[in-house]
């Protein structure tokens, strides 16, 4: 059955078609969009399949599990695939008018699909070296996207972005080497099985720390986040939105995968560490955001702050905590991408991202105000939007697990998030328009439909997630239960005979 490989193959085929049709520039967006739509449909089909029949496994080249590269889709991967599909469709549509022709003619759409291929590959692989390769696919595409256009500030940001991400990759690779030296296997399920039987597994903490640092840099967690606010505001906003939605979450995904599946032995060291790191990430991110005046910078710092919630869910390490982290991640990917897309709309109308230079949008563009308020108040956690339930689940799980400090921090950070969002609201929408007249005014031009539809679509999803918490949370609970008790994962990959040695 080839179905588990299709999330990698479809972006690849789309990319090939994009390159074949490269001479006809007008066709590019539409090929890209149809590829993205196909990918979303497929992700939903896979999600239904996983929900009905359990974990999907594909042994590539028919090499059986510990030897060959295995592709595994469990509940967590399925959710992430659907999210990546949603973001792919939104960005493909939004880019048609938001990204200028020059950038489009320099392989913009092929690179977006290359990035999606890397992201999907990272979500479904069951082999740690293969995960490294998908990270590199994703990174290389993102390097091109972040430098595309070659503006001065883009190059400034790109140098930091490229360096830090390369260092993270090399840490990851060194961790893989050390782990392989000790365990003699690269298959995640096989590693989980062998480590659960190993007596001296504390020796593995060298690799575990290397992985932790590598994923922390990718996920922009507290002491390692500096590259993110230095680079994310530089490229065109469609690219930033794509990165904000998916790239850091791949780091969080890998961290949750590694520290639930096989680095679970030394939990007295790791789980308090995750809670500390999560707490610091939340607080530092949200406080630094408060001093910014560029919308994209405020939102970039909030990416960091919200990564903290996901790490907190991992640190709580109960089914409810992990399910909360998964639900929060789903909410955050959608709402975060959407806030950046709305920032792009604001820029389209006013010509600036700087809060001092814009204002009066509530009066001139009431519909834009509605599109803005759904994702941002979703992020801040106002009921009935999805962010409220994400935080509710996480904080309830924290209280039930007896982690009071982190739960109170999470509550307080929610307030500060609201502060930043209200600040954007006040400055951009309520404040009267500045009169210095320096800034370009989009005036009464209509916003392009292709830019408004993705924003409305993602906003609708944020609303729907708020009203349909139960089915989504149930699915997240199943996924979290699979993560906490990896025996189903192991037996799906290696066969049932291995579990009772």
């Amino acid at each position, binding site marked *: 059955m080839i179905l588990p490989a299709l999330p990698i193959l479809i972006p690849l085929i789309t990319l090939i078609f994009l390159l074949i049709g490269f001479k006809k520039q007008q066709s590019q967006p539409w090929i890209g969009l149809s590829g993205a739509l196909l990918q979303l449909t497929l992700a939903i089909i896979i999600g239904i399949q996983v929900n009905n029949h359990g974990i999907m496994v594909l042994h590539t080249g028919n090499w059986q599990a510990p030897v060959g590269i295995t592709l595994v889709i469990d509940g967590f991967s399925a959710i992430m695939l659907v999210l990546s599909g949603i973001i792919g469709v939104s960005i493909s549509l939004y880019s048609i008018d938001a990204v200028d022709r020059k950038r489009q003619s320099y392989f913009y759409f092929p690179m977006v699909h290359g990035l999606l291929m890397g992201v999907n590959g990272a979500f479904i692989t069951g082999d740690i*070296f293969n995960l*490294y*390769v998908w990270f*590199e696919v994703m990174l*290389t595409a993102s*390097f*091109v996207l972040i*430098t595309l256009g*070659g503006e*001065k*500030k883009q*190059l*400034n940001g*790109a*140098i930091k972005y*490229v*360096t830090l991400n*390369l*260092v993270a990759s*090399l840490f990851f*690779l*060194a961790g*893989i*080497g*050390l782990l*392989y*030296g000790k365990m*003699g296997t*690269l298959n995640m399920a096989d590693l989980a099985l062998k480590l659960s039987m190993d007596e001296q597994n504390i020796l593995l903490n060298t690799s575990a720390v290397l992985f932790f640092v590598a994923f922390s840099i990718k996920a922009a967690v507290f002491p390692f986040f500096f590259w993110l606010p230095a680079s994310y505001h530089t490229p065109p906003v469609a690219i930033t939105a794509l990165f904000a939605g998916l790239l850091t979450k791949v780091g969080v995904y890998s961290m949750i995968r590694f520290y639930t599946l096989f680095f679970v032995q030394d939990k007295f060291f790791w789980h308090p560490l995750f809670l500390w790191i999560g707490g610091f990430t939340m607080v530092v991110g949200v406080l630094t955001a408060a001093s910014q005046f*560029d919308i994209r910078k405020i939102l970039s710092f909030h990416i960091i702050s919200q990564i903290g919630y996901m790490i907190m869910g991992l640190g709580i390490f109960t089914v409810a905590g992990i399910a909360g982290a998964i639900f929060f991640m789903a909410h955050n990917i959608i709402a975060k991408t959407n806030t950046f897309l709305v920032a792009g709309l604001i820029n389209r109308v006013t010509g*600036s991202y*700087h809060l*001092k*230079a814009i204002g009066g949008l509530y009066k001139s563009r009431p519909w834009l105000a509605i599109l803005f308020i759904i994702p941002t108040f979703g992020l801040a956690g106002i009921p009935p939007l999805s962010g409220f339930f994400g935080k509710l689940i996480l904080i309830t799980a924290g209280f039930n697990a007896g982690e009071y400090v982190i739960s109170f921090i999470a509550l307080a950070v929610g307030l500060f998030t609201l502060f930043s969002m209200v600040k954007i609201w006040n400055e951009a929408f309520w404040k009267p328009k500045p009169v210095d007249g*320096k*800034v370009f005014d989009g005036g009464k031009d209509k916003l392009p439909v292709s830019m408004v539809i993705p924003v409305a679509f993602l906003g609708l999803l944020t609303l729907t997630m708020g009203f349909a918490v139960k089915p989504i949370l149930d699915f997240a609970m199943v996924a979290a239960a699979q993560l906490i008790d990896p025996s189903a994962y192991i037996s799906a990959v290696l066969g049932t005979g291995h579990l009772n040695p």
Partner: protein
Amino acid sequence: MEILLAIVVGLLYAAGVYLLLRRSIVKLILGIMFFSHATNLLIFVVGGLHKGQPQYTANGIAAVANPTDPLPQALILTAIVIGFGITAFFLALMYRFYQTTGTEDLDDMTEGENL
């Protein structure tokens, strides 16, 4: 032999970190290259080094008692190819950076923020 290589790996990492912390982008790229070679060598050592014992199995029987694990070498090959591509990209990026800003000193980078 393993100990010697372990020392070399350590030295390469140290040199890589030192170069990464310099201000010049050329040295930054050299640092990244040292880092990646150190990592490759690390994986190479991890596979175990046994002189003159190629792995060859006929009819499922290993030809030698204590063969070198061939998998790390395959991993390194992949990592070298990836590292090569990334280095090429980084060099192109540096050239473009130099063309645009006229400097290759990282401290001269101004944020270039405008309203």
